[in-house]
């Protein structure tokens, strides 16, 4: 991309030149060319761009979390709102502030909740929950993938993820909901007990899952899919560092590898993002072996970069 690029039919320069008498066109074209030297007077550095992008990411994640909160607020208004919120929190204590737990990439972590339930969180997963958890209802929000072992309690246990809700009393189940997966897919698989799975605000249209069943919702489905059998060994394979890719688009496979190995993988082969692949790894030792396999099957190649890999045709 260059600011000085003039060999561009689509810019409509030809259309413009037609309006000038034939003998003046060369002169006008020269003016057009010369004016390009006046590049943008406001420069934005790479660093500024990256910082801005990080800010945008934060806001996207935050707004996915509190999607129902103030919708159309300008940057400045938001600052005032944040200031107001800080005041309220100072007055009422910080009890209302959700607790955020994020597992770094390349790691898996165990989280003990105040009610005694435990959550095993996959690499790169975030969970938000109220500090009043277990007093005002057991409700939390999830971005990523986690395996829940829920203790029976007075309140139902509720997981909100990617526009869906999973509701249980006491049971063990896995929720997978990565916002960067195609269609923001969320899937729930149960190993013990019973859970209810429905889209946010559509509790009447729920699917009940029993041990050994899985259901999925993504943006092109009206509601969660009917329960399908899943073998107990394939639920939450990530817990013992295994991979099971069943008809998975390359895009989500690479996302998963990125999180597990804490690298950046750039898929630079147009049209391959949604190519699917089935593969099983029981003891994945190194990432390159996996990339090698995928590339061989799909007729792609890979090369190492400073912080990961580049996949190309």
């Amino acid at each position, binding site marked *: 991309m260059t600011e000085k690029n003039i060999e*561009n039919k689509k810019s*409509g320069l030809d259309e413009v030149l037609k309006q000038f008498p034939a003998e003046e066109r060369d002169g*006008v074209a020269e003016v057009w060319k010369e004016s390009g030297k006046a590049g*943008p007077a*406001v420069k934005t550095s790479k660093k500024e761009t990256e910082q801005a992008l990080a800010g945008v990411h934060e806001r996207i994640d935050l707004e996915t979390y509190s999607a129902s909160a103030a919708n159309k607020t300008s940057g400045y208004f938001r600052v005032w709102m944040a200031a107001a919120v800080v005041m309220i929190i100072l007055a009422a204590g910080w009890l209302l502030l959700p607790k955020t737990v994020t597992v770094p990439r390349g790691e898996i972590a165990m989280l003990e909740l105040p009610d005694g339930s435990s959550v095993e969180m996959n690499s790169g997963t975030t969970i938000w929950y109220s500090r009043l958890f277990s007093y005002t209802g057991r409700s939390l929000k999830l971005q990523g993938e986690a395996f829940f072992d829920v203790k029976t309690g007075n309140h139902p246990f509720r997981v909100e993820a990617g526009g869906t809700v999973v509701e249980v009393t006491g049971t063990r189940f896995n929720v997978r909901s990565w916002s960067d997966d195609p269609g923001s897919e969320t899937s729930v698989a149960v190993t013990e007990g019973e859970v209810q799975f429905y889209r946010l605000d559509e509790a009447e249209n729920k699917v009940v899952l029993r041990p050994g069943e899985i259901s999925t919702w993504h943006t092109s489905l009206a509601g969660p899919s009917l329960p399908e059998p899943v073998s107990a060994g394939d639920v939450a394979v990530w817990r013992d560092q295994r991979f099971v890719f069943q008809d998975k688009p390359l895009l989500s496979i690479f996302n998963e590898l990125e999180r597990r190995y804490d690298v950046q993988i750039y898929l630079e082969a147009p049209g391959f993002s949604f190519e699917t692949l089935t593969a099983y790894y029981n003891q994945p030792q190194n990432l390159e072996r996996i990339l090698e396999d995928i590339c061989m099957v799909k007729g792609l190649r890979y090369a190492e970069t400073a912080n990961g890999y580049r996949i190309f045709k």
Partner: protein
Amino acid sequence: MENSLNEQIQQWAEQIKHSDRKAFDELFRKLYPRLVYFATGYTRDKAAACDVVQDAFVALWKKRFEIDPASSLKGYLYTAVRNRALNHIRNRSGMVLLDMEEEELPGTEYQKQHLEDSYPQVAKKFEKWIEELPGRQRETFKLSRFDGLDHEEIAGVMGISEKTVNNHIVAALGYLRSCYNTYQSEVNREE
């Protein structure tokens, strides 16, 4: 090159529609600096311009499922940024309301500052002349010249017809040419 960038952007549009964060990031990296410059033309304040552009990207992500891969995503973003920038000017309290239709904005801090660094003489002149253009002419000319938008996209962004877009650019080039000719004859006389 501009054309291949446009194709690339449309490919990203398709991916973003499917919630591909990486395509979103790439699009952001490519267009953010240009859009900030574009927005600064309205807000006259880089910090506010940055806010406006970031808002537009957050909104794009929220509405990603509604992206139409057949229409120009670049045009959509410029429109979104322009609307937000105009709202920003309107909402700014204690400031004189600027009528973007007619008002000619005086040269401001950021250009003066820029004119001082080592830059080809002609380039500085062109910057000055472009800032002298009437509001809408300047806006149209910059979108065409520096942001690589085609007539159709500019018409969409500005809410005017393609013919008017063409007329603005013709008028702008006419003015720039007369400035350039005068400048050249002055330089020749000095030599």
